[in-house]
C-alpha cells in the first residue's frame, strides 16, 4: 500500500482523557503537531504540560484502562490509532523509536546490555511479534548489529559493553547505549524525551552533539521533547510550545526566538537567566493548573499577565501569522 503523504508524522486533534477520581481530566486537548522527513522538531513546555503524554500516545505506551484517546496520529499517511496491535508494532518500535529521559533507569538492572539489545534488535529483525524464542542465527546477527552501533556512538570496546550489566557503566555510557539501541533499528523517526537531562552538563552536551550528528548523517527525523531552551535553539528546525495539554505556538526555531507571540512563550523565554542585564529573570507566576479544574477558556488565562475578559470563557483558535508561524491567543490578530 503506497500512500502519498507530506509529513512523516502528523498528529491531528489528538485528545487524551484520563479517568481520575473526581472526574475526567483532559490531559491533551486537540494537539496538532507534524514532523517532516529528516526534520528536527522540538517540543518545549513546563513539566506536566503534556509533552510526554503526546509521545507516549504515539508510541502506544499509555495504559489502556481509564484512558481515552481521540483524534488521529498519521504516520506515512496511515492513522496509527486505527491499526491493530500487531500492525502498529511494525511501525512503533521499528520505524519510530523513543529514547527515554533517564539513562539510569532505562536499562533492566538484572540483564546484560547484550541480552537486552539482542532481544530488541532481534525481534525487530524477525518482524514476528509473537513467539518467545529467537533463532540462534538472528540472535547472532542482532548481536553483531548491536556491536556495530555501539561503536557508532563512540563507545570503546563494544564486546565488553555487551557483556556488562547497566550498573557497571556510567550514566553517559548508558545514554550512549540507549542511542545505539534506537539507531540500530534504523528508524525514520526518533522521539527523544529530554535526552541527557539526568546527566551532568558537559556529558549532556557531548551526547546531544553526538545524537545530532548521527541523526543528520542518516537523515532520521528527530522529535525532541525538552524544557531546555538552549538545546532547542541549537538543534531544532522548528518548535512547538505546549502548555497544559495544548499547543499554544509553533514556528521555525529562529522566528520563535526572534519574535515570540504568545504570552506563555514570552514568559518561557524570559525565564532563562541571561549574562547581561540585572538580577534574575522574571519567569512566570504560578504553575501548571489542575487538569480536573481547567479554565474553560484559554488554559493559560489564570497565569497570563495580559489576559483579556474573553480569555476566561472562550478558547482561542490557532491562527496563522505567517507561513510557518501559528499561535493560539486572543491577543493576536
Amino acid at each position, binding site marked *: 500500500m503506497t500512500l502519498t503523504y507530506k509529513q512523516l508524522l502528523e498528529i491531528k486533534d489528538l485528545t487524551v482523557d484520563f479517568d481520575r477520581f473526581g472526574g475526567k481530566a483532559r490531559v491533551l486537548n486537540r494537539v496538532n503537531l507534524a514532523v517532516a522527513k529528516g526534520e528536527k522538531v522540538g517540543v518545549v513546555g513546563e513539566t506536566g504540560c503534556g509533552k510526554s503524554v503526546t509521545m507516549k500516545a504515539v508510541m502506544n505506551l499509555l495504559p489502556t484502562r481509564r484512558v481515552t484517546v481521540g483524534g488521529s496520529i498519521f504516520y506515512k499517511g496511515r492513522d496509527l490509532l486505527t491499526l491493530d496491535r500487531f500492525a502498529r508494532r511494525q511501525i512503533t518500535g521499528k520505524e519510530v*523509536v523513543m529514547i527515554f529521559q533517564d539513562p539510569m533507569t532505562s536499562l533492566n538492572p538484572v*540483564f546484560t546490555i547484550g541480552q537486552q539489545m539482542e532481544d530488541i534488535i532481534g525481534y525487530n529483525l524477525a518482524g514476528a511479534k509473537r513467539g518467545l524464542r529467537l533463532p540462534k542465527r538472528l540472535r547472532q546477527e542482532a548481536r553483531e548489529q548491536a556491536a556495530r552501533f555501539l561503536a557508532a556512538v563512540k563507545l570503546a570496546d563494544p564486546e565488553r559493553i555487551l557483556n556488562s550489566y547497566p550498573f557497571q557503566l556510567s550514566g553517559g555510557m548508558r545514554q550512549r547505549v540507549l542511542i545505539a539501541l534506537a539507531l540500530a533499528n534504523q528508524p525514520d523517526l526518533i522521539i527523544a524525551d529530554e535526552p541527557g537531562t539526568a546527566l551532568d552538563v558537559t556529558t549532556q552536551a557531548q551526547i546531544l552533539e553526538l545524537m545530532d550528528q548521527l541523526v543528520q548523517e542518516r537523515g532520521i527525523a528527530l522529535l525532541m521533547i525538552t524544557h531546555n531552551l538552549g538545546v532547542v535553539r541549537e538543534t531544532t528546525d522548528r518548535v512547538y510550545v505546549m502548555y497544559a495539554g495544548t499547543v499554544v505556538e509553533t514556528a521555525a526555531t529562529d522566528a520563535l526566538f526572534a519574535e515570540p507571540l504568545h504570552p506563555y512563550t514570552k514568559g518561557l523565554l524570559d525565564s532563562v537567566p541571561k549574562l547581561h542585564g540585572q538580577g534574575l529573570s522574571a519567569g512566570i507566576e504560578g504553575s501548571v493548573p489542575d487538569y480536573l479544574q481547567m479554565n474553560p477558556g484559554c488554559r493559560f488565562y489564570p497565569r497570563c499577565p495580559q489576559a483579556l475578559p474573553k480569555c476566561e470563557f472562550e478558547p482561542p483558535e490557532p491562527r496563522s501569522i505567517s507561513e510557518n508561524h501559528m499561535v493560539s491567543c486572543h491577543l493576536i490578530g
Partner: protein
Amino acid sequence: MQYILFLLRRAAHSILVLLGLSIIIFIISRVMPGDPARMALGPYATQEQVAALRQEMGLDLPLWTQYVRYMSNLVQGQFGKSLISERDVRLDLAHHLPATLELIMMTMFWVVVIGIPLGALSAVKKDTAFDNLTRGFSFTAVVIPGFLVGIGFQLLFGYWLDWFPITGRLSPGTVVTQKITGLYLIDALILRDWHLFFDALKHILLPSLALSMAGIGQVIRITRSSMLEIETQDHVQVVRSYGVPNLLVTFKYILKPAFIPTLNILGLLSASLLGNAFLVESVFSWPGVAKYGVNAMLQKDINGLVGVVLLIGLGFLLANLIVDMIIGLLDPRIRLKGEAE
C-alpha cells in the same frame, strides 16, 4: 570469583550468628526459673537425688565453668542427655527431625508452586475478577492461623468427605522397609515403593497445605506487588516501546527482577514455618521436632532445648544461605559487588 567470595562472606556471617545464638540460648537456659533437675526427677525425689543430678549435669559449677564445658561439648557436637527421654539429644533430634523436615519441604513446595504463579497471574490480570479473587484469598490465607486451617481441613476432608487420614505420617499397615533419609516421600522414591509413597503423600497433604496457607498468601501479595512495581519502571517501558512480545516482557524482563523480594520472603518464611509447625504438628499428631522442642521448653529439658534451638537456627541460616545464593545468581549487583566502576 566475586560470587564465591560473596558466598564465603555470607557463610562466615552465618557462623557468627550461630555463635551468638549459642550464647543466648545458654544464658536463657540457665536463668530460666525452675530447677531442671527437680523438673526431671519429679516432686517425690529426695533432696539428695536432686543434688546428685545437678552435680551430674554440672549445674552446681560456677556459670563461667559451665559455659566453657557447654561450648567445648557443642564444638564436639555433644548436646548431652535429654532429661525427658533420657536418651542422647542427638538421637532424639535424628528421630524427630525428618518428620518436620519433610513437612516443611512439602510446605515450601506448595508455597512456591501455588503462591508464585498465582501472584504473577494476578499481576498480569490486574483488576480483573481473577485478580480480586486471588487477592481476597491471599488476605484470608494470611489472617487465618495455620492450626485453625488444619482443624478445618480435618473436618472437611477427613471427617465429612473422608478423603484423607487426619493423623500421623503413615497408615498402621504401612511399613518402611529401609530408612535412608527418614523423609518417607524421598525414601519411597528411592526404593520405588509406590504404596509407601502414596500413603505418605496422603498423610502429608493436609498438614502441609494447612501450614502453607499463610506463606502462600504472603507470596501471592509480594509477587503481585513487586511485579506491578517493576512493570511501571522505565526499562520495562523501553522494551515495550521497541515492540518486544508481551509474554517475553512479562516473564523475562518483569518476573526476574520481581523475583528478588519474593525470595527474601521465602527465606524469612522458613523461620516462621518452624514456629507455626508446632501447632500444626500438634493438630495432626505429626511426630516432629517442633513439638519436641516445645515439650523440652515446658519441662525445662535444657539439653533438649539447646539442641532444638541450635538445629532450628542452623536450618534457618541454611535456608537463608540458599536464598542468598539464588539472589546472587539473579541479581548481578549483589554478585559482582565491588567490581563496579
